[in-house]
């Protein structure tokens, strides 16, 4: 499968990357090369091999439902560019071409 420009723009949008027109072509070339490399896996014979769910081979380790101390509000907000009423301030969400989930 080969990615075209439309695929590149779609993936870029999902990742919030703004590609200039000049950047699309080299990115497409590089990504296709990566995919091509991964295709090597198709050469393996995977008959009778269970799909891998997780590389560790472990089972989930569960913890008891006990409350541990949280950060202070000051610590939690320390990296925020803008704070108001002890909350993180974020810019307007809807509109401006960025209507997303």
């Amino acid at each position, binding site marked *: 499968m080969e990615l075209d420009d439309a695929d590149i723009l779609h993936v870029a949008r999902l990742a919030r990357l703004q590609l200039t027109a000049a950047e699309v072509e080299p990115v497409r070339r590089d990504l296709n090369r990566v995919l091509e490399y991964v295709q090597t896996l198709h050469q393996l014979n995977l008959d009778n091999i269970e799909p891998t769910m997780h590389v560790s081979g*472990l089972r*989930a380790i569960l913890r008891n439902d006990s409350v541990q101390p949280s950060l202070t*509000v000051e610590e939690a907000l320390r990296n925020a560019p803008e704070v108001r009423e*002890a909350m993180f301030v*974020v810019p307007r969400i809807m509109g401006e071409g960025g209507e997303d989930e």
Partner: protein
Amino acid sequence: MSASFEVIIGLEVHVELKTASKLFCGCSTTFGAAPNSQTCPVCLGMPGVLPVLNQEAIRMACLSALALHCQVRPVSKFDRKQYFYPDLPKAYQISQYDQPLAEFGWVSVRPAGGDVKKVGIRRIHVEEDAGKLNHLGQRLGDAVGSLVDLNRAGVPLIEIVSEPDLRSAEEARLYLTELRATLSYLDVSDLRMEEGSMRCDANVSLRPVGYAGSVEDLPRVEIKNVNSIRNVQRGIEYEIERQRELLVHGERIVKETRGFDDATGQTYSQRSKEEANDYRYFPEPDLPPLVLDVSWIEDLRRNLPELPDAIRQSLVARGIPSKDAEVLVLDREAYEYWNAARSLYADERTLVNWMLSDVLRVLNLRNESFSQASVGPRALVELLTLIDQGTLSGRMAKEVLEAMFATQKSAADIVKERGLSQITDVAAVGAVVESVLTSHPAVVADYLSGKEKALAYLVGQVMKATRGQAKPDLVNRLLIEGIARESNPTR
């Protein structure tokens, strides 16, 4: 003649599990704490942290799945659902995608006058909640910005996805009511829609009669995050009519997400979903698969509490009218109140009558629920016992009940204080009856000429004279006997 359509509804219900700590970290889940006071590097999405699953969340999720007749998978896994939104600090939500915790369940609904209908549950999966956004503006659309509180980020949720089996807004209401009642008996969630501990998204589409394709391919509108069961019903009702209008006029339904405006009862467009969601799920590398012992699952199943269907059956078998049984089943607190009271009082029907008429009326006035009722089961039974002993008439007892709520005193104390004992002495009541008959000859004549209502007036006069304390059936009997004697003195 307009084209006809069949309504297709599927519901996605998110339920917050009431664990003490979050799904993947030890932060408290207490509702209403100061903003951002219950966060840590894990739920803030700091780099380099690792999630560790909360055992109690898994237990509660399994219990819910079993109560909803689902099959719990012995092996399930967690996946990352990627999207950008400010309430999601990691830019992905840890959820379950292709191997959810449980599948293939059902909820039974009982449409009025119809047969019991099983509504399928496609899947139940475990995931983390997002934070809470407070928009700076009336609506998301015109907000200039938002404030983010991450206390809720990482609180455990189960998402219960129904099959598109519902055919009306009323069926959707019944499904939600039954689902909530079932979960209420498990003690796994507060289930408060107004606080967001239970949330519902409704997918609504109309299928033209004769349409042969898959339901999944119909243009579907999702009504998001409505804050009460009543409003889910209203939103669906509005949406059905809106879509019908469009289709009848040959217009197209746009696949989109819509909000619900409580004030107008209308849905409004929030965002278009024309472009398919592209969440790029992939297995969560930080969490190995969840493997559950089959014996542990079976143990949970064996220890499920009594659930609505069984409770309904046992109530009706005890002679409780099905309408009353329904009220008790759907309100766990009422059912527990009843259970406590019936262990002290034999006449279960009388008990239910009092609970669901008089007690419920006062509770509503006082904005109390059965679990916090100022007059508990034992106090109510004491009151009913006074009626049975003849100390109080039913009417006096209603008055005493209100006084019990207001003063927290026992029925016996109120009777004593107010000198309220019912007058059952034949001679005492008889004397009053005689005087009422003597002073109302015209009314007596009316009664004798066939006006049945005249008797009620005379009863009222006796009651008034005795401050409501004369035993009503005794008053009736003595009046009729008295009139008979006067009109037929020769006998």
